[in-house]
């Protein structure tokens, strides 16, 4: 190879590198800029929020957030949100993980169809189902309860739970379980001693995922609860007529917990998507 070949190759590689960096920066900005404005507006006084142009540095005015801290019903809604999300998390893993295991380990008729159907549950828009559901819940007495709402959220979270655990289980070679069987394990002990330790981080990730789905869900929450509103439904109802600075602060309160969760489990989410994160 001649010297010019080398240098042109290097130049190409360098320009490719710039393109890559630029794309990454653009994508990050796409996500981060709105979040940053949300943060600034939350931490600004009402006057600043309504003025233009916006400052780029937050002025650390805690007024809006303090307002929410003292707001009637706020804490109760927060508690409801947590309860519903935790219930959703538990139920979607309790149902989704065994289904994921079955999909990855057993051959049965209609397996492909079953996988399809699991995904199809996401094809029906919730608004379409919300009214019949509300009627049914009222008949069965599930309306306005945490467990009732958690059931709905569980159906939303299950497809993800099934597919995530399916791919996790599939990533664990069946030979590991078989080896455990030949070493004195039953199917159950092989699962607890070999599969579970390997899968636990992933299960935790998909549990958190279910938590976040439930936390962010607003439509079913608004339709199916009245007294026991979750935070999203509560804020949606209250913020409609609230001033702009409170809207920003409310949005901020909603976004932060989800962000914190996703940040906490990012490693597993990356692993799940096959992105090495070392």
């Amino acid at each position, binding site marked *: 190879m001649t010297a010019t070949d080398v240098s042109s190759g290097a130049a190409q590689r360098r320009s490719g590198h710039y393109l890559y960096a630029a794309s990454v920066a653009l994508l990050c900005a796409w996500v981060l800029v709105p979040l940053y404005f949300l943060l600034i507006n939350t931490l600004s006084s009402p006057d600043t929020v309504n003025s233009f142009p916006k400052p780029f540095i937050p002025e650390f005015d805690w007024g809006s957030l303090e307002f929410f801290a003292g707001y009637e019903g706020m804490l109760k809604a927060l508690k409801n949100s947590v309860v519903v999300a935790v219930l959703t998390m538990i139920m979607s893993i309790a149902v989704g993980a065994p289904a994921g295991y079955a999909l990855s380990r057993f051959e049965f008729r209609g397996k492909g169809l079953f996988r399809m159907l699991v995904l199809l549950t996401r094809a029906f828009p919730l608004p379409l189902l919300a009214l019949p559901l509300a009627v049914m819940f009222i008949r069965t007495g599930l309306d306005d309860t945490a467990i009732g709402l958690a059931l709905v959220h569980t159906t939303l979270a299950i497809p993800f739970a099934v597919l995530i655990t399916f791919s996790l289980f599939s990533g664990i*070679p069946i030979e590991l379980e078989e080896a*455990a069987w*030949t*070493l004195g394990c039953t*199917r159950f002990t092989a699962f607890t001693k070999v599969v579970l330790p390997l899968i636990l981080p992933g299960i935790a990730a998909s549990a958190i995922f279910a938590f976040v789905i439930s936390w962010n869900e607003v439509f079913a929450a608004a339709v199916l609860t009245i007294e026991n509103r979750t935070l999203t439904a509560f804020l949606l109802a209250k913020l409609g007529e609230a001033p702009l600075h409170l809207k920003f602060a409310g949005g901020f309160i909603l976004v932060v917990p989800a962000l914190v969760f996703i940040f906490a489990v990012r490693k597993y989410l990356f692993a799940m998507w096959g992105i090495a994160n070392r």
Partner: protein
Amino acid sequence: MAEIQIKGVAKSFGSYTALHDINLTIQDQEFVVLLGASGCGKTTLLRIVAGLETATTGEVWIGGKRVDHLPPKDRGIAMVFQNYAVFPHLTVFENIGFGLRMKKLPNDEVKRRVERTAGLMHIEQLLGRYSGELSGGQRQRVAVARALAMEPDVILMDEPLSNLDALLRMEMRAELKGVLAESNTTAIYVTHDQVEAMSMADRISVMHQGRIVQAASPIEVYRNPAAEFVAGFIGNPPMNFLPATPQGGGRWAVAGQVLDGPQTPKALKFAIRPEDLRLADHGLQAVAKVIEPLGAHLLVTCDVNGALFRAVLDSDLSVKPGDTLTLAPQSDRIRWFDPETTRAVA
């Protein structure tokens, strides 16, 4: 006491039949090697004995007890998997001790057995590592040690030394054989390495396309292959074949030579091992094509009447490509095969 009986076992995966009517009895403490080309069903048979796969038909008996319906853990077996199956979340020590812990053995006994088997496999310095920190050959030895530590009645090994270098493999071969003989273990050992099969086996069971074509002592399999497949598979280089036409009265014409053979009117195949040929005044006319010095011997690939033919000759011989050699087959080593059934004809 653990005799293994495999009675009429067949296995189908959908429409594909991986095993056809396998019958094999393995004596208590016998060391049987399953030898065969890739895909012939060795692993499948082993898995059926282990209870990891259910036979489509047939029975498996271990130690005089029918075990078809028993889960692997109740069959008194230990298995070395072809792809090792070393647990990634446990250290080498805990891997080897896994089965012992399941048996609830006291800690000091677990430690003693783990250290002993690790020593046998030369991995005692790796006990604290995780499988991700091991080479393929080290992982494989962990798998073997894990099975040995169980001190089972029956050990099933699926190519347990395939990933080791030649020297280590030779050493491990001897150690394994010694340990198993000492512990009175019945062993089924899968390999496609003939040398390994020859050197370790009490009996070799040669498999071909889901069938056992011959089960006999290594020397018998080598000297008297029961079928053309065995003759062509065992031995390096394998047996030579030439078409033979009957001349009547047990006389056969082979590549222009007349030889004595069996009394049948059908056409047969003549077969001879490359090392059972001598240079002589009368014999098969072979045109040398490729000459490969192997140290002690000379491997000469020739053309006899248009057929590929190999001879292992003395390394002192000076021969060039294009030379014509006269090769005399050693008469008591000649074998005959029926081309229709591919079976040996006496």
